[in-house]
């Protein structure tokens, strides 16, 4: 049973990675990140540990994910104000 859970989580992680890499929209990228965090969380909860530390780790991961989402969205808004777009292929000031 654990094996199946791990594979599901690996699959979700890979999809999240693919989203982060491929999608142009910054909000999609945030979604991909959330997906990857969830995938790792599944692993943590599934393993659990002798005293259930896994659950606590999962809990903190969710908390951090929330914080990350808030900050990330704030950044996205800022980028939008600055460039008037959140298509990442157009935000390429790093080039120079």
């Amino acid at each position: 049973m654990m094996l199946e859970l791990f594979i599901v989580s690996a699959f979700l992680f890979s999809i999240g990675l693919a989203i982060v890499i491929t999608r142009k929209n910054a909000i999609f990228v945030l979604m991909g990140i959330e997906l990857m965090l969830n995938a790792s969380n599944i692993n943590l909860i599934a393993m659990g540990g002798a005293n259930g530390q896994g659950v606590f780790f999962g809990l903190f991961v969710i908390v951090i994910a929330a914080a990350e989402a808030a900050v990330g969205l704030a950044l996205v808004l800022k980028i939008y104000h600055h460039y008037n777009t959140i298509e990442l292929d157009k935000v390429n000031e790093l080039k120079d």
Partner: protein
Amino acid sequence: MMSDWLIYFLGAIAILSACYVLFTSNLLFAAFALVLTFISIALLYLVMGAEFIAVTQIMIYVGGIIVLIIFGVMLTNKLGNEPPRSGSHNKFIAALVSVSMFGLLCFAIVQMNFSNDMIGGSLLQIKKIGQVLFTDYLILFELAGILLLIALIGASVIASKKDAA
């Protein structure tokens, strides 16, 4: 076994809806598909016996993060009759990277050879979780609270209209 079938079923829903997020071009549909994924993951937690986590997952992700994301979508798109759309790039190489990542992870999982026992979160009741949180993990708990506060303040500062610089 009932729970096995549940896990397969919920896992399939999560994967499919995640794939929809990956392939759709409509932002809002993607957000709703993500909700579906999160809910199925929460149900997976229930199956594993981690009720507290499952509830937290639904509350924070579905109730908080997805709402934030939808707000973000609305704030960053000139909404009219047309749905907010976005394309994708780097498809081929991203597929390559993702597939090889998946293969790598599967290889690692198979190599690790876990015992198939289910040591789920069911061993810990909500009451006990509360006790442990405020005893053993007190400092971490407080730090998490501070982190959330900082994130809140930071997000509002960053997103504020006024240019700090």
